[in-house]
């Protein structure tokens, strides 16, 4: 696997998840209390570090065949899920991820929640909101970093890509103090879905004992082919949706005539 492809896949996946986590953290911080929110962020990052420390060596120690089969299968399932979601959004069947709306909903909920002090944490609600946001959004990223990094035998580069994405998104979030609504999240999700699916398919099939024609260079065909197929599915769904909407509009007129 090329270092560039590894970096891009992990970086984009981390940007998508970091944007979602930043929205939650900003909502907690601006409406409740920054100190408790930042303790929640720190605790979430610490929990993620524990997961990496516990799983990282275990994943790296697996024999390559087993690693490619199990981890490749999981990556393939993840990739197909990401593709499915981005295709449904791009074709209008699922609402686009609206960071502005999510921010407003979180702010409204945060304003109405009662304040409670627990130990060092002045505002328990802000703490748990930030902690859960960072942990849940970060868990998928940790999984992608560990699996991609281990399979490509380049964990440091995967970690670097994840770190760069988090620093970039957090930096912009702090600078603008508003949800990052302009990030083309769905397009990025589609690209990451394609890469996870391509690498997951490649590694899992190899792990199951198959040999790809052309070896590693099969990925150069596999990834663009999956992207093209995904775009075809979007086009098919858009046409289907348009036809359904026209059918709906036409139905009352047909009755009237």
């Amino acid at each position, binding site marked *: 696997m090329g270092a560039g492809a590894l970096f891009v896949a992990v970086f984009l996946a981390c940007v998508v998840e970091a944007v979602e986590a930043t929205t939650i953290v900003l909502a907690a911080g601006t409406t409740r209390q920054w100190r408790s929110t930042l303790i929640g962020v720190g605790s979430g990052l610490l929990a993620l570090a524990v997961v990496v420390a516990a799983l990282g060596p275990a994943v790296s120690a697996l024999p390559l065949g087993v690693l490619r089969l199990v981890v490749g299968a999981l990556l393939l*399932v993840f990739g197909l899920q990401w593709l499915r979601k981005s295709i449904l959004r791009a074709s209008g069947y699922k609402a686009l991820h609206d960071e502005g709306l999510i921010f407003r909903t979180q702010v409204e909920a945060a304003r109405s929640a009662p304040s409670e002090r627990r130990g060092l944490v002045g505002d328990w609600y802000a703490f748990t909101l930030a902690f859960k946001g960072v942990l849940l959004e970060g868990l998928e990223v940790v999984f992608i970093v560990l699996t991609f990094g281990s399979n490509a035998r380049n964990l440091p580069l995967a970690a670097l890509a994840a770190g760069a994405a988090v620093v970039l998104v957090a930096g912009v979030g702090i600078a603008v103090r508003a949800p990052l609504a302009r990030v083309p999240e769905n397009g990025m999700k589609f690209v990451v879905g394609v890469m996870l699916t391509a690498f997951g398919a490649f590694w899992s099939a190899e792990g199951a004992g198959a040999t790809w024609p052309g070896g590693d260079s099969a990925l150069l065909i596999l990834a663009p082919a999956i992207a093209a197929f995904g775009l075809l599915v979007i086009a098919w769904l858009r046409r289907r949706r348009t036809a359904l909407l026209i059918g709906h509009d036409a139905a009352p007129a047909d009755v009237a005539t």
Partner: protein
Amino acid sequence: MMSRLKAFGAFWYDFVIGDDWVLAAGVVVALAVTAVVASASSTGWWIVPAAIVILLPLSVWRGTRQR
């Protein structure tokens, strides 16, 4: 205790299986077939791409029906 266990199970189901279980089940079946075919010859590489061609449209079609 039971509700926490249920929540834990639900979290991992959502994390690994996601919105549509058909994708995960299809991947498992495709890899099992690949392993069987690959044990006899080395031509099983096409099974996973073929599964993607079937599973992705099937899953998004199911997604459109759920809405």
